[in-house]
């Protein structure tokens, strides 16, 4: 009976593949975070000022905050439909360690909603008149920051998965937690603009990322078990 049992890595990849498949079928999961990011960013020149001097000042902050919002609002999809259609129960009843299955879901989610946002950020940085020497640092810091956001957010989503209206409660839980990421991210960009080395901040973010990769899925798994109860 157990001879045909899958290895954990097979289950990991099956889950990763399934989630990517769903995302590609729905398309919106990929396109919307991206669109949201662009639209929110372009509200700022209208709401604050269209002059490029002013924009330069706020560029890094606006981009980082919009990325935080986009990545946090996209979290909602992570476990929700699985919860509603019962797939989540199936996941929890799998004989494999939940850590890896949850990690697979997180990775797929980041690939689909975090990465595209990071990739388009230089374009918006240009539109907000951020000096071009800071592009590299901006992208790098976002590349480290968005997965941390996804991993942290995943815990919050897992906790709130059974609730009716999640969009905002998720933001209310996660945004305060993401303040450190915002601080280091914007400081890294600022220091590049001041011709200093951003390496300190970047390595701090690297540390945060590795800690969250190894701990957050555990917390998410525990949170899922609590929610499904």
């Amino acid at each position, binding site marked *: 009976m*157990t001879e*045909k049992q*899958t290895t954990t890595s097979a289950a990991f990849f*099956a889950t990763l593949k399934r989630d990517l498949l769903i995302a590609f079928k729905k398309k919106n999961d990929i396109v919307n975070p991206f669109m949201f990011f662009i639209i929110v960013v372009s509200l700022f020149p209208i709401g604050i000022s269209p002059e490029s001097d002013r924009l330069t000042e706020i560029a890094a902050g606006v981009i980082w905050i919009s990325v935080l919002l986009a990545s946090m609002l996209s979290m909602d999809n992570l476990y929700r*439909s699985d919860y509603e259609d*019962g797939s989540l129960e*199936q996941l929890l*009843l799998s*004989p*494999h360690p939940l850590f890896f299955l949850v990690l697979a879901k997180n990775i797929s989610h980041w690939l689909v909603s975090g990465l595209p946002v990071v990739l388009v950020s230089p374009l918006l940085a240009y539109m907000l008149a951020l000096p071009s020497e800071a592009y590299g640092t901006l992208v790098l810091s976002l590349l480290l920051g968005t997965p941390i956001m996804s991993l942290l957010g995943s815990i919050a989503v897992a906790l709130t998965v059974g609730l009716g209206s999640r969009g905002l409660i998720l933001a209310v839980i996660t945004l305060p937690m993401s303040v450190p990421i915002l601080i280091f991210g914007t400081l890294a960009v600022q220091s590049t603009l001041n011709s200093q080395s951003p390496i300190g901040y970047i390595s701090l973010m690297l540390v945060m990322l590795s800690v969250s990769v190894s701990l957050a899925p555990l917390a998410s798994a525990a949170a899922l078990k609590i929610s499904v109860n």
Partner: protein
Amino acid sequence: MSSAAPTTSPNSDTDKIMLAARELFCARDERVLFKNLNFDLPQGQVLQVQGSNGSGKTTLMRILCGLNDSYEGSIKWYGQEIEDQAASFFSSLLYIGHRVGVSKVLTPVENLRWSCSLKQAVSDEQIMDALKEVGLRGFEESPCYTLSAGQQQRVSLARLIISPASLWVLDEPFTTLDTKGVAMLEKIMQRQAQAGGAVMVTTHHSLSIAELTILSLG
């Protein structure tokens, strides 16, 4: 309150008793759902849990699967605590609840490919055969949101055919099935019992299966 499977021969063949519950107690919102609930589920048996609406059938099923831990008492798997052998328990368990675990965007084939591969390796032929058996020929590649309620239920039932799991826990699997579907599912359950597996099922139907035992919850 609880009439259980006949326990006349005390532990004579414990190795054939898959699941044994002893002195289960569960209360929700201070309403006692069941207490002193005892039953054994030996191999080769179909155990139907009966009870009126709100008597705690769903709660009991979820407790047995470990999806709900607000209970007292002991549940043993082949005579041992479940926590001590979680991997073996979970790979022998197949649960289908009120929510059937079928993603609406995916097709039946894609759904089964994932949900089965959480437990065992599975080939596409197996999936196709199973879908044919549950009467979804021609719907293999339609996204599940285009299927009717009963057809979606059938997708999840296809897992029963593919799965080598020895313990099935089914919460109201008959709800949206038509009469043909009911007969089909009864046949599948019977086959499982004859092959030495065990089935635990809640339903308000009266089943026509030889290996049936009934557990009543108030």
